[in-house]
């Protein structure tokens, strides 16, 4: 590894950290602007002014905003996400298990969807404008166009109700055997796969088609390589940067955007946790989850940037 590439990567990471800090400010400011105050919502309408004032002092609400921000940020940096107002539980502990559940689901959806999407993209290019291409594109578009709750209920109807192959409610608990857990997440993972497949597949197809115009593709064809080898060996490596980008965007969606699917399958993940606590106006939880989602999003985008940098032979091997 050479120094220019390390410099670029270091720049991206530094930018990411800066961005994350900016987001934390925004999240904090946003929740401050919301009407009402935490003490009021804890104690309810019938609270006496004295008890309100006491609680405010206890929660530190009388401090100026920037002091509270740094206290909050300091807590997060040391692993203390605060306490949920609605339940009084430590947020870090309750998030721990749920974050793991969300990542577990996202991981398996990604393991299925990413290779599938890229292979389908390669196939679509191989048989471009033929019936195979049109079939792949058509099905992929159809699966994206249906809202995820529709696909979700469709799968539940067939696989859970009619054929009883998989559970319709994805209950998971600590110490659950791996296979049982896999069976539980089969349907939500399938829904997520169908939702993200088309986007990745179509971007793969477009990125590779773009490269197929290059002179070196002709060189490869004139070496007598088969069409699929030309695409795999010569077109794909040059299309990798845009593909990494779209893959990372979809990975981020798998982690951050799964609220609807988690609700349908009553899956104990982050999305459901967030929705519950938004409804309860539990500000510390919303802040913590928001920050974690932002961190995931920013990290994956940094990974995409770094992937694109590393995939570029000109940066990897300077003159």
């Amino acid at each position, binding site marked *: 590894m050479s120094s220019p590439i390390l410099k670029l990567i270091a720049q991206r990471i530094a930018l990411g950290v800066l961005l994350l800090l900016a987001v934390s400010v925004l999240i904090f400011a946003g929740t401050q602007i919301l009407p009402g105050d935490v003490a009021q919502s804890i104690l309810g309408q019938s609270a006496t002014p004295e008890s309100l004032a006491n609680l405010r002092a206890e929660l530190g609400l009388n401090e100026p905003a920037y002091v509270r921000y740094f206290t909050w940020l300091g807590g997060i940096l040391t692993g203390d996400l605060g306490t949920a107002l609605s339940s009084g539980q430590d947020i870090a502990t309750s998030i721990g298990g749920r974050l793991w559940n969300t990542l577990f689901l996202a991981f398996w959806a990604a393991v299925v969807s990413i290779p599938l999407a890229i292979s389908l993209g390669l196939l679509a290019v191989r048989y471009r404008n033929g019936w195979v291409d049109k079939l792949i594109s058509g099905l992929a578009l159809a699966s994206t166009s249906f809202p995820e709750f529709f696909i979700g209920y469709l799968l539940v109807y067939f696989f859970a109700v009619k054929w009883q192959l998989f559970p319709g409610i994805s209950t998971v608990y600590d110490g659950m055997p791996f296979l049982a857990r896999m069976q539980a997440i089969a349907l939500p993972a399938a829904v997520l796969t169908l939702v993200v497949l088309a986007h990745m597949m179509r971007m793969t197809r477009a990125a590779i088609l773009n490269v197929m115009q290059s002179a070196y593709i002709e060189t*490869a064809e004139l070496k007598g390589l088969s069409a699929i080898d030309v695409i795999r060996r010569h077109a794909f490596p040059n299309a990798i940067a845009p593909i990494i980008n779209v893959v990372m965007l979809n990975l981020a969606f798998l982690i951050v955007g799964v609220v609807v699917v988690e609700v349908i399958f009553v899956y104990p993940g982050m999305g459901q946790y967030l929705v519950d606590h938004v409804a309860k106006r539990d500000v510390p939880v919303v802040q913590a989850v928001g920050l974690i989602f932002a961190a995931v999003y920013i990290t994956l985008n940094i990974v995409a940037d770094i992937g694109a940098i590393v995939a570029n032979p*000109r940066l990897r091997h300077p003159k």
Partner: protein
Amino acid sequence: MAGQAQKPELLLDIRKLRIEATVYPPGEAPKNIVLVHDVSLSLKRGRVLGLIGESGAGKSTIGLSAMGYGRGGVRITGGEVMLNGRDILQSGKRGIRKLRGKEVCYVAQSAAAAFNPAHKLMDQVIEASLEHGTGTRAQAEKRAVELFRKLSLPDPENIGERYPHQVSGGQLQRVMTAMALCSEPDLIVFDEPTTALDVTTQIDVLAAIKDAIRDTGVAALYITHDLAVVAQVSDEIMVLRHGRLVEWGGTQQIIKEPRQEYTNALVSVHEITHDEQVPGEAPFLSVKNVTAAYGRGGPKVLKDVSVDIYPGQTLAVVGESGSGKSTLARAITGLLPPEQGTVTFDGRPLANRLADRPKEDLRQLQMIYQMADVAMNPRQTVGTIIGRPLEFYFGMRGAERDRRVAELLDKIEMGKGFADRYPAELSGGQKQRVCIARSLAAKPKLIICDEVTSALDPLVANGILKLLLGLQKEEQVAYLFITHDLATVKSIADSIAVMYRGEVVRYGPKSKVLAPPFDDYTDLLLSSVPEMEIGWLEKAIKGRRMESAGN
């Protein structure tokens, strides 16, 4: 390879080849056009046939047909392509794939584009050998290294570990030749392999290709538009025009006793006589000690450059790519403000930055570019394109403007009817003419011509040069003529500046610059220009005093 012994003496026999394509003209129904009209040719084992002609002559199309390949929807619709005794057009997709990269290999015009940027050179060079199972990886790599050495590439043991962007254009072209030779084919199709290179680099690559052909005994189809180049490597030459055979004969006969008028025109293409004008009393534009760099603190691309341009005369700036010729133009026009030095115009200094120059100064300096088609807005008609400077500089409108556009079209020897056409409907030469008319419309004192004929066929380029000379007499316009082609310089310049690595190494009137004694670099440039003479290449290589920069 079994059956090597029985391979027929006649390697390639193309009979009555007909190639068609479907074109989709805007606003019309798609139609079929015939690109190659029943052309026949034959090539014996180990011989070299040069295919020559202008663009659209069908030479690449014919060359690629030997690999059963049609570029961009081109179809082979008739005839036979007999290779090693069988008609490859009958052998199906799989059969054709088996011969590509094994029996026939291809060397493209731009090796820089034809190598995959994502893979190491070695992996690409031996790919065809591995694909067709002509040897193990170790054997193929060994052969590749031998070929690198034969093609006099630097560091032949390790150059394969590099990526394409780490190697110069001339070297890449040689690596591509090694790639074609690596799988020991019977035939190589060279498609303009030296056209994109500087003259000084071209001569090295040409010599390397010639040696490699001789030592390996491979047969070759050598496609080019440059007769002097093809005369150096070919045993026979076939002249093509509009997809038809014009003349086919031995190299000596074609270049010395051409039987067809068209061949004769190709042979004598560079002969324009232009008498040098003596410099006037005072130059109207002086570049004084200009130093310039891209980016602050970047390497100096121009170092202390001084030249003068006299009214109605032509200063030619010659040099290889990277010598700073185009940067000089950018400094004069203000696109790249010089770090030091001044540009004076009519006795007063011009503002360094383009943005600081008044409209009148902008009008006096116009430019014409190498790529005429990207220098015009494809969605504007020729009339709008030429009329734009008339509106901008002179405020002409309506009928007055149209009249002037018609006059200008007349000057560039194109009819009024072209005013309503779009650039896409014009040929390469016509596009460049429109660009000339556009620059003339501003009535400038100086037109900077940046490689304006480099992308054109020789005969078309010749027409453009004649037009430029004629216009200079009529309009008393001066040219700053940037080129790497010394033949062009001889036919158009009054004075010459030779540039090398950002410096002017030789400067003066044409007669002085082109007369001995020469400095080493000018000598290298002059001796690298291919001459229509068998055996020129060997003589030129022997007589050289310095290595070319591309090496």
